[in-house]
């Protein structure tokens, strides 16, 4: 079978080799595995830097400043803050980077808090309350029981999981101990947590298996090209 050289073939060959290098971890840590890891990290970092420059800094900051197009004067502020952020590398002038860092932290915290409140906490709380809405269920006692049970189970799981992480206790002669109700619900929550961890493990296993299958398929396909 004649093999024509192409960049795709080269890329496939490199991929094949890198795949084998990663799979060599089965026999233990070895230089091939480390090489593959270092290449992946390096390429990722380089690609990220290239993307950041080509798609963010150059078209959105320097080109408008150099060409003067648009409201370029307003771009001096992010430019100045960026330069101040670079002073973090200097021990003498590191204090100047406190301003841009403060802005980043403040904006990020505000975004996260606002999103968590209005995007997760309130809707999720409302959803729990709405779960007990029997009107949403189909008509019939069975459906009501089903809906109520499902909602109660969900509520029980939520509350018990939260109580499991309550570690405040009273001091007793036999030592610090939590209340009996809290202790009981915490045990139930521990069960829900264990089930959750199991589900998470299953999902990870599926993801890993899918990745393995894809790589094995690649290897088989690559090898089959030469057979």
């Amino acid at each position, binding site marked *: 079978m004649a093999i024509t050289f192409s960049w795709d073939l080269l890329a496939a060959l490199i991929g094949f080799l890198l795949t084998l290098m990663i799979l060599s971890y089965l026999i233990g840590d070895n230089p091939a595995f480390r090489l593959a890891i270092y290449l992946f990290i390096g390429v990722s970092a380089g*690609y990220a830097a290239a*993307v950041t420059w080509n*798609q963010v800094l150059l*078209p959105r900051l320097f080109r408008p400043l150099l060409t003067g197009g648009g409201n370029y004067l307003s771009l001096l502020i992010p430019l100045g803050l960026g330069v101040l952020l670079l002073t973090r590398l200097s021990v003498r002038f590191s204090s100047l980077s406190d301003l841009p860092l403060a802005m980043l932290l403040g904006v990020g915290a505000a975004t996260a808090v606002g999103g968590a409140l209005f*995007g997760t906490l309130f809707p999720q709380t409302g*959803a729990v309350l709405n779960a007990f809405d029997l009107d949403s269920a189909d008509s019939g006692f069975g459906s009501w029981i089903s809906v109520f049970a499902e909602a109660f189970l969900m509520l029980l799981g939520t509350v018990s999981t939260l109580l499991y992480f309550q570690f405040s206790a009273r001091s007793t002669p036999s030592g610090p101990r939590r209340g009996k109700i809290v202790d009981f619900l915490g045990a139930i929550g521990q069960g829900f947590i264990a089930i959750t961890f199991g589900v998470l493990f299953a999902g990870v296993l*599926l993801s890993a298996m899918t990745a393995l299958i894809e790589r094995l*398929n690649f290897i088989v396909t690559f090898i089959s090209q030469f057979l």
Partner: protein
Amino acid sequence: MSQILCPNCNLPNPEGAESCLFCGSSLKPAEKAPDAPIRPGQQPTVKPTSELDKVKTPPITAGQTPVPRNTDELEQALPAWLRSLREQGELTGETGSTEEAVSSGGQPSASPSAQESEEPLDWLNRLSQEEEEIPDWIASLGGAETPAASGTSQPAKSAGPFEMPEMADSQAASSQPAEEEALPDWLGAFAQSPESSEDESAGLVSQDETASADILPDWLDRLTPQAQETPAPSEETETPDWLSGLSLGEEQAAPQAAPEPDWLFNQAAEPAEEKPESSSPAFTETPDWLAALEASAASESASEEQSVFREDLPVENAAPLEIPDWLTDFRVEEPKASAPAQAGEELAESLPDWLSGVQPTPSSSAGSVPALIGFEETSELTEQPAQEKADAFLLETPDWLERLGPEQTPEPVSPPAAESQGDESLQMAELPSWVQAMRPVESVISETGATVSESEGVVEQRGPLAGIRGVLPFLEIVPGRKPPAYSIKLQVTEQQQKYARLLEKLIQDEGQPKHIKPSVQYSIRIWRWIISVLLIVSALLPLVLGGFLSPDLTLFPSEWEQTHVLLDSFPENAAVLIVFDYGPAFFSELQVAAAPVVDRLLYRGARLALISTSPSGPALANQFLNSTQASHLQVGAQIVNLGYLPGGSSGVYYFASAPREAAPVAVDGSNPWESAVLSDVYQLSDFDALVVITENADTARAWVEQTQSHLGDTPVFLIVSAQAEPMVRPYYDSGQVDGLVTGLVGGKTYEQTFGTSGLARLYWDSLGMGVLAALLLILVGGAQMAILALREKKGGNA
């Protein structure tokens, strides 16, 4: 004789003395009346406190040359003792002994009057100047100064106690030649004896002082040599009669006898009476006092003698001695057949007054030992021969005492005889053995009896002074009792040793490492290989073999129906925003999951805008489209890649609020918002759907949270990995997310729904086999661990 007490040292001084003989302080009353005590409110008067203040001359200052002045006026400022020293020094300088006089620490002046005014430090020196009679033997002990010899030297050589030896030497030297002729050998030797012995003798016979007569006690005054009154003429020392009798040559002039005390007179009389009683004819020529000694030495009242006196010692030379009267009383009387009480009475009569007051304590009961052994008649003491007693306690006896030979001593009275005599007042006590053992006299005498030499002193046989002659005997107070010897070894009982061994064993056990039972260690690498092989084989076999080993899905996920319906409800040419926020590692899974959905959207003619908050997102998006949609993909007409969106959640919020400003440029550099794909999209809600493809639950949550308020009615689809699905499902259940596709299962589901065949079907068999293998491994491993745990539990309980 009246005396004046010194106000400083409180010692008696003669009446006419101006300064104290001992300390030199002035005895004159203060010239000034004592100052009246100051009263409250009065101001104290300043008084000169220094005698130098009387001298009205300013003190010399620095830089000034001292001016010679007449220091006579300063003499008054000197203390009296210092003045006397200076005067004496001037006087002694003539005779060549100025240094000695000065170093002696203040000697009285040369003249008698000066001597009277200046107090010699040694009151004994005045003894020589006393006009009162002193016994000759005492005077002779002082060196027997000749009046001529001592006259010239006395004033200048009046010495204190420190200078007595020198003066005694000088005096003895001057009078020695004459004395040697008059004094017996022993006395001459005594006079020429070393300074240490002459110290005492010189002190006794110092003839310099003239005013000492008033200071000395009466009894001692009488003993002082007569020569103390006048320097030259009064220094004639008179040897006592008894001593003169001993001398080979001429006797010296008998000193003027001082009036003897009464007790001395009595003693002189009694021995004179007792003289005829002395049996020894050898003592006919002896002095009365000595004769009395001989007589009393032979009696049973040997206990009356003090142990230090040997009254019964033999005398080498039978030359008669003149015993002074006072000494005669201490002689041991001849043993008599009479009761010891009679002897005691006789002895008591001979005792001086001051000594006669000491009454012997009668023995109260048998076995008790009287306290005062020396004056009691005890059977034990009487047992001892007087010879032994004397030998025991007399170190160096003079010859005159030694001449009191043993033949003159009375025979000791045996205890039974003593007891049989039956003293009415004193009963012989029967002492217990332990008391007898404690009695020092008996033990010493009995022990030293063998070593007593008549001509030599006692030779000690025991103790640290063994072999030395003439020492005090070794008194074994508690014979036979030695101090308990304590061993330096630690005394430990058997039980304590047992406990110590137990403790030592416990400590040793702690230091020794415990032997750990080796347990079977399974290599983790082997198990890793086994598991890996199983999984790889299970996943590879379907790929290699091909075909379809697993049936299609019959049970779809719960979110499938809603998602499927919603995807089919999009209008044609709908603008869909697809977010590619996953990493390269999850490309395979998400490719399988998103391929059917994107394919369906493209099939329905949707316009796709791609964006990513990850730098590698745009590249992965292109790869995804090229690998799955290449057959019907028309890039540029239906798809625009907005590129990388920086800022994370803030960038998402920025894009959600102003998408044209947040992503002004596409990946190729063109303006995407002017293209046909996004020309009618100005805000996020203008999109017909939002599809987020991610493997991270946080990224999905961030897109849901930040775009929720800007989407409006735009549905949101989440295509997530299987590992993020549990964390993202609540958003679907809460209604925040309208569609959910999960991993390979979701892709398979939608492939099966849409009737397509893609990677999901290819990977489906391998996934099944692999999951099955993993399931089996989990079950086997869990069972094994459960069995091992049960075994350990049973072993622990057992």
